[in-house]
């Protein structure tokens, strides 16, 4: 019995060694691809026509959809920032998802809205709409009040109300940079292949100073947890997604800021209300839909247009967010398992889905089981402390390498954090996030795994914006 157990533990140790080597090889490849792509992009942006498109009547109209549930603290700031974007024709549609706080009243009061009657075409089935609010003073703002049913249903409602060929989703606690939308639309307009979805970069809003709906000055937050997330977002957006985009293999475009071709989304059936990460599920379905119909398509990620969003500053909320993200990833992959290694789906089935399954989904589980294997190895007396320390040092150093490389990439491209103190703090957190923060993240993601297995698959509400000072709320 003991021999079998020892063999199992030994085998698992080898598996972890090879798995770890494989994952890091993939990450290094993604980093190299991203560096080339981002550097090319940054040179290309000098002759990008986005400034011409700001005033061009040929630029397609866009509806900006802002689903809001209990967002009274930040909704005005968000709406002001979306209304302030540089874009020729756009409407902002706020969908109040049956908020129990004063979200709707705040909007009515601030923008002098009055109730209007509009025909509601329930093309994508949603819960009933209670009313529409509009003001001739702000003719491109419409507030839809509906019964509570979640973000996905609210977005479907926004799509039903929208009258534009494209829509852009923005979270109610997010702030768009003034050229973000036009920069997102430019590659869509320019692409000879139909772009069905396009996502931009999300950065942490914590620490940012706002004025009249626009980002006035950039600073870093005091909270260490927010700092860890800033470094994490840099890593995810500057090398993870850019690398996958080169393969047209993006499965995750943040719902906080993404642009969609409405006809493609409606054709695919809109957002699915049962998924906890509706954005990822939709992107996966858009891929499948286009591949099954053999229509040329592209789903793009652009590393320049920025949307600033509140990140949680306490562990409880952050844990909820990370569990939800991982649960959503799991749901999307399981729902699309028929495409996995299916020749019909080409690289989507052979590269993209396997990447998300074996690297993004399973890596935290392997990591946590790895810690268990260390304990078991010790109990069976087969643990080489010297080897363990070396392996641990390698894992930590590789994590530090990825974080510092992302900060370097940020430095040679967009340099959004202007002060020397910003740079040093980012580098410092890039190093220390590997001691504790990364591990706790893996723990939350494992929790999501277990929750899925025992059938606990509900959306966990994340309260954000608690730390937004009154002067930064835009009201």
């Amino acid at each position, binding site marked *: 019995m003991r021999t079998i157990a020892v063999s199992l533990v030994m085998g698992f140790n080898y598996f972890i060694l090879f798995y770890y080597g494989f994952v890091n090889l993939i990450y290094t490849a993604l980093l190299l691809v991203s560096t080339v792509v981002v550097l*090319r992009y940054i*040179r*290309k942006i*000098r*002759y990008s*026509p986005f400034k*011409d*498109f700001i005033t*061009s*009547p*040929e*630029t*397609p109209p866009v509806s900006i959809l802002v689903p809001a549930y209990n967002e009274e603290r930040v909704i005005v700031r968000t709406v002001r920032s979306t209304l302030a974007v540089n874009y020729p024709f756009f409407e902002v549609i706020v969908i109040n998802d049956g908020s129990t706080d004063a979200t709707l009243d705040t909007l009515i009061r601030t923008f002098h809205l*009055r*109730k*209007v*009657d*509009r*025909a509601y*075409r329930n093309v994508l089935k949603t819960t009933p709409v209670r009313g529409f609010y509009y003001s001739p003073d702000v003719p491109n703002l419409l507030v839809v009040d509906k019964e509570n049913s979640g973000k996905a249903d609210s977005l479907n409602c926004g799509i039903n109300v929208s009258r534009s060929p494209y829509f852009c989703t923005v979270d109610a606690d997010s702030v768009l940079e003034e050229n973000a939308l036009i920069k997102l639309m430019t590659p869509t*307009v*320019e*692409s*000879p292949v139909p772009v069905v979805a396009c996502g931009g970069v999300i950065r942490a809003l914590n620490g940012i100073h706002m004025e009249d709906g626009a980002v006035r000055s950039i600073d870093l937050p005091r909270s260490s947890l927010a700092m860890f997330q800033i470094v994490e977002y840099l890593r995810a957006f500057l090398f993870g997604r850019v690398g996958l985009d080169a393969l047209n293999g993006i499965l995750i475009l943040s719902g906080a800021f993404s642009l969609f071709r409405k006809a493609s989304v409606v054709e695919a059936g809109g957002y699915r209300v049962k998924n906890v990460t509706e954005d990822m599920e939709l992107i996966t379905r858009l891929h499948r839909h286009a591949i099954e119909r053999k229509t040329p398509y592209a789903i793009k990620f652009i590393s320049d247009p920025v949307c600033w969003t509140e990140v949680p500053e306490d562990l409880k909320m952050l844990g909820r967010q990370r569990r939800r993200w991982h649960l959503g990833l799991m749901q999307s992959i399981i729902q699309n398992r028929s495409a996995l290694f299916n020749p019909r789906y080409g690289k989507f089935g052979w590269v993209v889905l396997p990447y998300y399954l074996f690297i993004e989904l399973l890596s935290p589980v392997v990591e946590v089981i790895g810690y268990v294997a260390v304990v078991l190895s010790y109990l069976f007396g087969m643990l*080489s402390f*010297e*080897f363990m320390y*070396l*392996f641990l*040092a*390698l894992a930590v*150093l*590789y994590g*530090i*390498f990825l974080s*510092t*490389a992302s*900060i*370097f990439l940020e*430095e*040679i491209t967009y*340099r959004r954090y202007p002060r*020397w103190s910003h*740079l040093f703090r980012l*580098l410092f957190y890039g190093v220390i996030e590997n001691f504790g923060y990364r591990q706790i993240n893996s723990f939350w993601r494992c929790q999501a795994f277990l929750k899925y297995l025992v059938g606990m698959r509900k959306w966990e509400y994340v309260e954000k914006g608690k730390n937004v000072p009154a002067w930064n709320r835009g009201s």
Partner: protein
Amino acid sequence: MFAELEQILLVFLAFLLLVILTVLAATIYRRAAALRRYRILDLNRDQYGKRFRELIDEGKSVEEFSAFAFPSRSAEWHAVEHVLFGLLADRRYESAGAALFGKLGYRSHYERKLENRNIIVKSSAVEKLGRMRCEASTGKLAPLLEAKNAEIVPITVRALSKIGTLEALEAVLVRLPDLYSRSFVSRKSIESSLRNFGPAAVSDLVRYGDLYVDPVSRASVLEVLGGLGTPEALSFAFRNLDHEDSEVRAKALKVIGAAGGGLPPGEKERVVALLGDPVWFVRLQAAKALGTLGHDKAEPVLAKRLLDDNWQVRNAAATALVKTSDNAIGIFLDTLGATDRYAKESVCEEIQKTDFVYRLIDNLESPGRETYGKSREILKIMASLGYGTPLREYLESGADDRIRRELTLIVQQGAAS
């Protein structure tokens, strides 16, 4: 075996540590270098900006600026380039700026870069020549429209449109069908660029539009003409109303709607006929055009379109009727008597959106029995369909007591039905 593995790990660790330290040092160095570079650039830009304006104001000729011809890639070269673009944006110094680009060697520098094999360098040069409005470079840019590269072609189209001469326009128009067939550039990109040529381009657009056999190019030209809203394009648009391609017909209607003021009734009839087109977006453009043109004989056909299968057509027809028809009340009432709920809701929405509802409310004190009766009936139907908000608003804050009494009854009846 473990010992060997440990050796490998140790070597790898040392390597990784070295890489991390290099990345850290590179990050810090890069920040310091960038700050220094921008400081120098800002300083030079301020200095040369003032100096250039002074010299131009003193009436110095372009020849006397040769002291500012710096080697390319130097900080001064970049600063002067920034300054010259600044001059180009200022009407007072515009012509001097354009001339200095040639004199100080920027044009020849970027023209040389057109030969570069690196696409980014080449594209950047194309964009710069366009922004410099180098008319003399048109001949060198035009052949790039034939490049087999999806990056270079749209930038060249745009650069030529910024140069804005008829020669540049012709270079694009002569290749338009080819550009579309090769799919290296999107339609939106081309149409945005063609519009930059402005009204002076109309006669060439029409001339080439007539020559194009492929419907995509023809529709594209019509789309640009529609945006320019010029009456000189009307005859071309009318020639295309019977085109077999639905998009061409729709775009032709757009031109007519945008440009056509006082058209003879016979020509308006041709537009009315297209309200019956089998393709919805042709009907939509016909309804929109009639909203601008106005035509008595269009009323019954527009009334039919209030029940169109497509909601955009229904909306456009309702808007056209509100804008142009004296008999809109009667037509709306007839439509609201229809059975289709979507159609009725569309009409109600349009009545609200176009503020026609306030005309109906005012009509409640009209001395004419027919106007009063029809307005009252429409308001009652609107209230019953849930479109009673303006009525309730009037009840809360309206001034006329008689109207308020009428509205109270209407809202009660609407709620009961």
